[in-house]
């Protein structure tokens, strides 16, 4: 049956309600099984040895003493993970990041690993591995790394995307450019121009559950991986590629996930665990410590961004330009490119140009972090927009409304928008009581907008109807934010049965067709599309079964309110058949009943949000408290509003942490100074007010219920919203995130000195 995903307005019974979450009891009682909760008989303990140097040539590794230690079953180095990338630079980067080959590229880079019978033997074995390093000059700062005299990390990196191609290697891997119109001509028409440089520091996703897995390679070439991941199918592919395994022989099962935020879309120690298991011939459990998570798993980019925006006195932006420099860790990435694409996406601009520079540095390989690259760009752009509004004497919200993109606007990164939510979120912000609430002493208010693309992608869902008429849907997108509840609601809606009768499970890679991972805010959007399609297929089967049971034509049967109903003068005295009625007879009418769906979910629909933030700053210490915070975002359709609010709040909180205190602090030696939650300061509960939310529902035309992804956009505006609030509270512009107390006091002192 062909599936029509287009939006149709309809009365909804389940979608939009707030039932109890299906995973709640397991999680609060500790029964839920996370990555480190899986165990196998005979499993070994895996540990990774990491470089203490930011940049060093590996002269020699001697593992003989470790191998000789009683209880050690395997020691692996890069030699056990031979390069099978076939010249594919991205695959090689992942491999080299999992296990350093010629050089250690950052403090914490893996250089060897052991598998031993217990943790204390493994720890002792690590100490017996001798690594001889030749320490090389390092660079961690993005601007310093771009300078001509910076130590070059990789002699094979020649900047791509520039004409003519450079003849000497550098730390700049790529240049990208977006935009349209003529910015110079646009600036010439401006009455007022703001031109600034902004910096943001590197942050970590800060998921509470560290990376953990159990790997088991069998002698027949099959292998199993139980792992905490956002994408079991992607992990399967990447691990198979790196280890030279047959993809179909590797089965990956995802655990419950204690946060990922993008950090669990990339492999870290999993290929190492597989290599250890392959060598030891036994299952290997590898759990990263918090310190390892900070030192070696994916932080976001540190950035340096130049912004120039010009406007007429009436508030019309005439031109906008940004140059964005993003660190990507030691390997080339496309993080600046994403930043460049998102920079001015909220606005309808005649002349716009953005340029992204990808910069390699001696820091851990950058990973996706919730709307990757967008928050930093939004900080820079929304700070400049705010300053420009002040300068021309216009209200910050009105100024944005005047320039907001809408249906038909050509976006700064290329496509022309359909119906979008930036205007409505701004209008909602303008009329929100928060916007007009009085401010106390030392308090300031800021606001900012944010954009994210959202994604759909490959999706496969199985829907099985049990003999009792209850329904199980097996999905391949890991539930990171409540998708099992949302998918159950949507399935219940489509079938017309109660939510309680549907159970959603996350299937392993051998039980279901390929699914893209849970990223790009796609989990609920794409899997619900497939679930609806699968449900419609199952309804078709049930109508056919009812036809058999009644011995009438299937054309005379409709599906309504969870029942097969016979229509037409001759049939309408037949009592409708429920799902349970039909399921009970399945053995006699053709066997088990199921619906399947395989599709590429297109048309995810871009997402916008507007945030309002009040802070109070102690002008003598720079101490900042967020006293009120409001998130306004378009959800298309909020399937389970609690979860949508949770996504809004969670993103806002992560953004507040990033804005105020979170940052990687490096010593002069290039070592990370704060690889732990004590000194890497994510907000604690008492740091935050209740985050207020307002859900707007502007239906996505490409989803049957109008759903849009909601998971990421909420982290985009907070950096700017907080910085604008702080700037307004202390009456000094802040240009460097995090706006930590020392930075605020320094800015105040500089201003006092004049």
């Amino acid at each position, binding site marked *: 049956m062909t599936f029509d995903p287009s939006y149709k307005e309809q009365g909804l019974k389940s979608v939009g309600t707030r039932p109890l979450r299906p995973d709640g009891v397991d999680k609060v009682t500790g029964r839920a099984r996370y990555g480190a909760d899986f165990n196998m008989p005979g499993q070994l303990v895996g540990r990774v040895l990491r470089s203490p140097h930011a940049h060093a040539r590996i002269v020699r590794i001697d593992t003989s003493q470790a191998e000789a230690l009683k209880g050690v079953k395997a020691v692996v180095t890069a030699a056990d993970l031979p390069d099978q990338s076939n010249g594919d630079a991205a695959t090689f980067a992942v491999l080299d990041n999992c296990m350093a080959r010629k050089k250690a590229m950052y403090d914490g880079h893996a250089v060897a690993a052991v598998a031993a019978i217990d943790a204390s033997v493994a720890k002792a074995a690590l100490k017996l591995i001798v690594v001889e390093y030749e320490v090389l000059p390092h660079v961690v700062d993005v601007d310093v790394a771009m300078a001509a005299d910076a130590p070059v990390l990789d002699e094979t990196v020649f900047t791509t995307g520039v004409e003519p191609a450079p003849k000497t290697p550098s730390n700049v891997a790529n240049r990208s450019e977006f935009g349209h119109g003529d910015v110079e001509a646009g600036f010439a028409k401006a009455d007022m121009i703001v031109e600034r440089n902004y910096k943001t520091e590197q942050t970590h996703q800060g998921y509470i559950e560290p990376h953990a897995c159990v790997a088991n390679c069998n002698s027949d070439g099959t292998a199993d991986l139980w792992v905490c991941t956002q994408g079991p199918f992607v992990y399967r592919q990447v691990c198979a590629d790196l280890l030279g395994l047959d993809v179909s022989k590797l089965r990956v099962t995802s655990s419950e996930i204690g946060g990922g935020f993008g950090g669990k879309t990339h492999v870290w120690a999993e290929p190492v665990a597989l290599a250890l298991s392959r060598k030891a011939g036994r299952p290997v459990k590898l759990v990263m410590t918090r310190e390892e998570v900070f030192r070696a798993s994916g932080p976001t980019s540190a950035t340096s961004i130049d912004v120039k925006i010009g406007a007429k006195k009436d508030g019309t932006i005439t031109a906008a330009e940004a140059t964005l420099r993003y660190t990507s860790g030691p390997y080339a990435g496309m993080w600046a490119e994403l930043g460049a694409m998102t920079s001015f996406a909220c606005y309808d601009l005649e002349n716009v140009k953005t340029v992204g520079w990808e910069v390699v540095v001696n820091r851990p390989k950058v990973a996706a972090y919730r709307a990757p690259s967008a928050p930093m760009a939004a900080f820079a752009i929304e700070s400049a927009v705010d300053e420009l509004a002040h300068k021309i004497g216009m209200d910050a919200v009105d100024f944005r409304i005047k320039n907001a993109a809408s249906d038909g606007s050509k976006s700064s990164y290329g496509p022309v928008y359909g119906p979008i939510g930036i205007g409505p979120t701004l209008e909602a912000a303008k009329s929100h009581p928060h916007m007009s609430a009085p401010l106390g002493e030392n308090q300031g208010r800021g606001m900012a907008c944010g954009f994210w693309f959202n994604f759909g992608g490959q999706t496969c869902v199985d829907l099985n109807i049990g003999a009792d008429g209850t329904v199980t849907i097996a999905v391949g997108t890991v539930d990171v934010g409540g998708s099992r509840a949302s998918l159950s609601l949507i399935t219940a809606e489509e079938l017309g049965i109660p939510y309680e009768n549907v159970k959603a499970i996350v299937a392993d890679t051998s039980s279901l067709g390929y699914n893209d991972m849970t990223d790009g805010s796609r989990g609920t959007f794409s899997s619900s599309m497939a679930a609806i399609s699968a449900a419609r297929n199952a309804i078709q089967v049930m109508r056919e079964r009812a036809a058999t049971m009644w011995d009438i034509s299937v054309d005379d049967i409709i599906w309504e309110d969870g029942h097969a109903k016979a229509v037409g003068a001759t049939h309408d005295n037949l009592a409708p058949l429920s799902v349970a009625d039909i399921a009970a007879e399945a053995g006699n009418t053709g066997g088990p009943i199921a619906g399947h769906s395989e599709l590429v979910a297109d048309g995810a629909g871009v997402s916008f949000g507007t945030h309002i933030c009040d802070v109070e700053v102690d002008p003598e210490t720079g101490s900042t408290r967020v006293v009120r915070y409001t998130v306004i975002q378009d959800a298309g359709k909020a399937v389970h509003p609690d979860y949508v609010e949770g996504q809004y709040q969670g993103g806002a909180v992560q953004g507040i942490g990033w804005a105020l205190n979170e940052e990687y602090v490096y010593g002069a030696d290039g070592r990370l100074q704060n690889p732990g939650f004590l000194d890497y300061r994510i*907000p*604690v509960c008492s*740091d935050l007010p209740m985050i207020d939310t307002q859900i707007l529902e502007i239906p996505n035309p490409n989803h049957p219920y109008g759903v849009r992804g909601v998971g990421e956009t909420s982290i985009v505006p907070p950096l700017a919203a907080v910085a604008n609030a702080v700037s307004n509270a202390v009456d000094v512009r802040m240009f460097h995130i995090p706006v930590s*107390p020392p930075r605020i006091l*320094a800015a105040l002192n500089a201003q006092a000195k004049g």
Partner: protein
Amino acid sequence: MRYESPATIENAVDLLANSDGHAFVLAGGTDLLVRMKGDDFNASLVVDIKSVDGMGQIEETADGFVIGAAVPCAALSEHAALVAAWPGVVEAANLIGSTQVQSRCTMSGNLCNASPAADSVPAMVAANAQARIIGPDGRRTIDVADVPTAPGQTSLAKGEIIEAILLPKPGARTGDAYLRFIPRTEMDIAVVGAAVNLTLDTDGTVQTARVVLGAVAPSVVVVDAAADALLGSKLSEDTLKSVEVACVAASNPIDDKRGTVEFRNQVAGVLGRRAAAIAFERAGGQS
């Protein structure tokens, strides 16, 4: 690694005195257990003092308070007489970590961990607290300020345990206060700490004063110049300014992940001044 939980203090001292040197006292464990998880930590013996007779008690004597080494900080705030006498010490101890941490951690542990940023230490030093130490050679009592000698190091000899913290009875018209700066609201380590303890004369002027800074030097800094500025005053604006200037001058921090030198110096002055104002008010002072 061996774990022992002796019932008497003599037994505890014996165990430690006869150990191979890799022995640790375990009080609340909020520092020790965290360190034990590190790859570079090695212990052959851990002596838990929580079951030692009397260690979990706060005793009020004619001279003051005897606070057993295993008394968790949360219990301090439940002792009405102690709170009335030394509100600054109690508030310092109850800034440590969170409610959960406070239910385990002790002031003795905070002291023996010898972190420059320990919260209860500046307040104890300002209050002229002493530590009663027991060891193989018997008991001795020293000023709390003399326990930590450098970051992570104490003057305790092998086999020695702090048995109790002794706080004097404050004289009439005494007030103390402790303030610390952290970027968050809890679960953080002091970037700067400032404690003030002062007593007023019958005429309401400051008669004695101690001003102590934490986290701005390898050990606590007793700022005599700030105390001198307070003496004889009723905390005029000028006095407070002098206290602030003296604290800034005495502050001798490093640049690190928790704050810059410039920031710490400036905030040391602000907190010293603010703590003095609170202590003065608690002593019944009127400017």
